[in-house]
């Protein structure tokens, strides 16, 4: 299906947003990570269509920007699910039963993005889970995870 008009409108809006973000941080190569964080905050991911414009604004090549986006686990190149649920799988949480939680979470994710994270700094109260970089949950079990999922389903 060919829908040029819609794509064009999107592109204009995205370009304006990108300009504003770049303006906020400055046209310097070392502003790249803060800019990528803001892009991800606005879009939920870093759209590939923005990389060329971003690269030329900072005096970088598209390959350099792509290299940075793909290097850092935090930056996602595709849109995430309705919520992003991070399950800590590092040693301290492993010692408290994180593998069972992670395994359970993988099978019951539904339309959520479930991904491992290596340490949330909640090592005395693990297994730990973080939702959308906002809420934190300690001493997680498969049962408590199901309750959390129900809560997220009811949330707007």
């Amino acid at each position, binding site marked *: 299906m060919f829908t040029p008009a819609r794509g064009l409108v999107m592109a204009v809006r995205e370009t304006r947003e990108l300009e504003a973000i770049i303006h906020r941080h400055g046209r310097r190569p070392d502003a790249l990570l803060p800019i990528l964080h803001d892009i991800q905050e606005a879009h939920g991911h870093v759209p590939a269509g923005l990389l060329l414009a971003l690269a030329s604004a900072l005096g970088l090549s598209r390959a350099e920007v792509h290299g940075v986006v793909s*290097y850092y686990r935090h930056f996602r190149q595709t849109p995430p699910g309705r919520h992003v649920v991070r399950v800590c799988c*590092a040693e301290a949480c492993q*010692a408290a039963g994180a593998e069972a939680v992670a395994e359970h979470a993988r099978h019951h994710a539904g339309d959520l993005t479930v991904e491992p994270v290596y340490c949330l*700094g909640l*090592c*005395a109260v693990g297994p730990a889970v973080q939702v959308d*970089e906002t809420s934190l*949950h300690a001493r997680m079990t498969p049962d408590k995870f199901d309750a959390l999922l129900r809560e997220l389903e009811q949330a707007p």
Partner: protein
Amino acid sequence: MFVPGDAAALALGADRVAGAIDREARWRGMEVRIVRNGSRGLFWLEPLVEVATSSGRIAYGPVAAEDVPALFDAGLPEGREHPRRLGRIDELPYLARQRRIVMNRVGIVDPGSLGDYLAHGGGRGLERARRMAPAGIVEAVIDAGLRGRGGAAFPTGIKWQTALAAAATPKYVVANADEGDSGTYSDRMLMEGDPFCLIEGMAIAGLAVGATRGYVYVRSEYPHAIARLEAAAAAAADWLRDQSVDFAIEVRKGAGSYVCGEETAMLESIEGRRGEVRAKPPLPAIAGLFGQPTVINNVVTLASVPAILAEGAAGCRDHGVGRSRGTLPFQLAGNIRHGGLVELPFGQTLRELLYDFGGGSRTGRPLRAVQVGGPLGAYLPEAAFDTPLDHEAFAAIGASLGHGGIVAFDDSVDMSRQARYAFAFCAAESCGKCTPCRIGAVRGVELMDQLRAGDGSRIGLLRDLCDTMIHGSLCAMGAMTSNPVLSALDHFPEDFA
């Protein structure tokens, strides 16, 4: 009343408790001011609510939102009796037996208030440093015997001296807040509970070496610490100007790369590139951020500096053993009953920490192994629990204290699985710049799978691989992955049979 805003307390429902206290107080027509303090670090008691009374701060915990009406009925605002009442917070044995120096304001002050920080002794180190010559500040830090708290334990003053002697300008101060080691959270607690202390330490470092700009590189997994620091950096900007200190701080958010905790990878990341390590030399103190002289110190290291300037070097130097001077905030983690932050002078034993403070495992089963010093630290069996906690004693048994994180495992742990995980973690986190780490980690996972499938003949090759990674890797990521692997193999051979 104090209800912690610390991330671990939040994970246990501290926001709901604060909300319930606020509602209950309004409903009863009482005026209650709720301060969101940092955590005292007694995590099995979180959310831990404190009430300021004429006889000191009275603690209650763990408190659930549902407990709040009954607590008010019993007289919570006056600090009266209740089954959740723990007594005076500073008399709880877990705290009373510690020696809190760097973490001495965490859990006590309002981390959102610069005024509260100054009222609790903050700012005096910077005030003194302003009246000293740069070389004098460096001398004080050397005299204190302060070594880096991030893991490598390099003498801080020597690093500063190198940066001071470098002629090029501008110079930079970078606070390494990329606390990626599992089992460690003292940086996080300090940033969330006493952020101005880190800022003061950075400003003093700036005066010492002649830097006017500082970066705090915080991992993206710590959004609450980032928010606290950004607010504190904004509030401190005016204060630093009032102190006639020309120093500006920028908070930089990481992006989920463990290697960026390695100092040169961190510099690459701040400069906007992939977090690949740089070959040393040149040392960052001579050619670091943007090629300029740069002091890079861990959060707890920098936060240790204000007290050294304010109280004198002896406050640090007179604690500890051998070349490990001062105190270290140890962090009890994993399968442990009383997990939490224990700041002690170097020299106590693992056993004291695990049993006297930690109370053994959370599951009630015997402790079988502990990993000290993060994912690149060694696994130690019970036979090593009497090792004194000091850098040299740990090095002597092929281990490292690192950042002071101690992860406990009970007897259900499979050590060959932990060894496999060490390689898998290295494979996932390797920056890819050097071959021993990039390829070695993947081969290590394969070898461990063969071993675990019953092919015992692979142990020789496994040791060869570790040897290659130790001697051929560019940084600690590849070189130290052998620590958990070989220690698991040497101390728990029955799990590899």
